[in-house]
């Protein structure tokens, strides 16, 4: 097989980038991580993602693929090895549904419940997060969303396992706890303990520091 040239344009603190790293790791794909400065976007980023100008961007033999879930499906199809999505069409539809649910219902609500100075906005968003988490709690039937092994939905949910605990600690919130969502909480512990996942997570302290700084600036600006 010809030498594969695989690059991932990303940032260290992004859960979207992390999804792609997990998928690449699962397939045993070697790649070059090209760290991006989103305040000062590189020519390479603008060339490979002119439409959204965002990370992650996977560049495979100089051809770019954008949008994290599109990239993960591409990785699943382009490389052999462990399947990320199920093979049955109905199970695939369900996996895509829950991954999209996480994209649409979790990210923004979590962000807005933390990074706001308007207490009404905070309360509204906490409620939305809890509603979303309840759906996920009810959906978890096995050890992982993918069953006995983690799959597409678990990978899509990495922000819930790793980022939410950090953010809720910083803001003093109870978004996900063993008390309010025991199955989802247990899932997060199981997921984070998998070697493949551990190897793809960014270092906690620097990321925590960045978010904490951001939160404190926001509070200071309100006074």
């Amino acid at each position: 097989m010809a030498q594969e040239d695989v690059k991932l344009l990303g940032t260290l603190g992004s859960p979207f980038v992390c999804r792609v790293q997990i998928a690449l790791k699962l397939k045993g794909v070697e790649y070059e991580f090209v760290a991006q400065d989103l305040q000062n976007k590189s020519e390479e980023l603008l060339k490979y993602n002119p439409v959204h100008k965002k990370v992650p961007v996977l560049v495979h033999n100089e051809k770019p693929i954008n949008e994290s879930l599109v990239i993960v499906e591409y990785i699943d199809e382009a490389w052999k090895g462990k399947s990320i999505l199920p093979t049955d069409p109905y199970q695939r539809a369900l996996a895509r549904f829950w991954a999209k649910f996480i994209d649409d219902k979790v990210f923004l609500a979590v962000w807005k419940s933390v990074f706001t100075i308007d207490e009404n906005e905070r309360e509204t968003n906490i409620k939305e997060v809890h509603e979303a988490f309840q759906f996920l709690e009810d959906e978890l039937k096995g050890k992982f969303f993918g069953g006995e092994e983690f799959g597409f939905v678990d990978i899509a949910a990495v922000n819930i396992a790793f980022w939410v605990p950090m953010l809720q600690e910083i803001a003093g919130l109870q978004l996900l706890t063993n008390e309010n969502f025991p199955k989802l909480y247990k899932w997060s512990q199981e997921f984070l303990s998998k070697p493949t996942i551990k190897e793809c997570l960014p270092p906690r302290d620097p990321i925590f520091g960045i978010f904490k700084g951001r939160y404190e600036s926001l509070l200071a600006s309100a006074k």
Partner: protein
Amino acid sequence: MADEVTLLDFWPSPFGMRVRIALAEKGIKYEYKDEDLRNKSPLLLKMNPVHKKIPVLVHNGKPICESLIAVQYIDEVWSDRSPLLPSDPYQRAQARFWADFVDKKIYDAGRKVWTTKGEEQEAGKKEFLDALKLLEEQLGDKPYFGGDNIGYVDVSLVPFYSWFKAYETFGNINIEKECPKFIAWAKRCLQKESVSKSLPDQNKVFDFIVEMRKKFGLE
């Protein structure tokens, strides 16, 4: 084995139209159920408890929600005819990317065009036309986004054409003048029965939007 296929839908919904087109392309017989969205049926609430939205495709009693997910499902189950997604992984990723772009840009910007006024509307109009122009560029010289035949991106996008009279009237824009290639592509799609039978007439959609605007207090 007889397949039982039902589509829970709402006639002016561009998202519902996507699924209609996909089913027609594959020649699948199905039962169409129009929902009253102010009075959602027990079946809809049972089949889509999470979002309570249409369209919902029900195949042998099992629901598939979210229009693009339903279109991919149809393509994968009835894979022996009229493929909607390409077979090459990179081309598939491109198709998924552009369908996602349509989801992110066209509906929301279009909505601003017919529901807002002043600066917000101007911003919506610009976003909407910029998105159409980007899609025109992406189409290039191909007859369809899918190449020689309609594909996933065509299916995701052409339903919005049925809303163009509404966008043009309330936004005071001439889409054909701004994006002639886009209109030519849409008309080309409409020559296909799977599309023409799935899209309502622009005038009917327009009348529906007029009623909606009254309800929102916009008239």
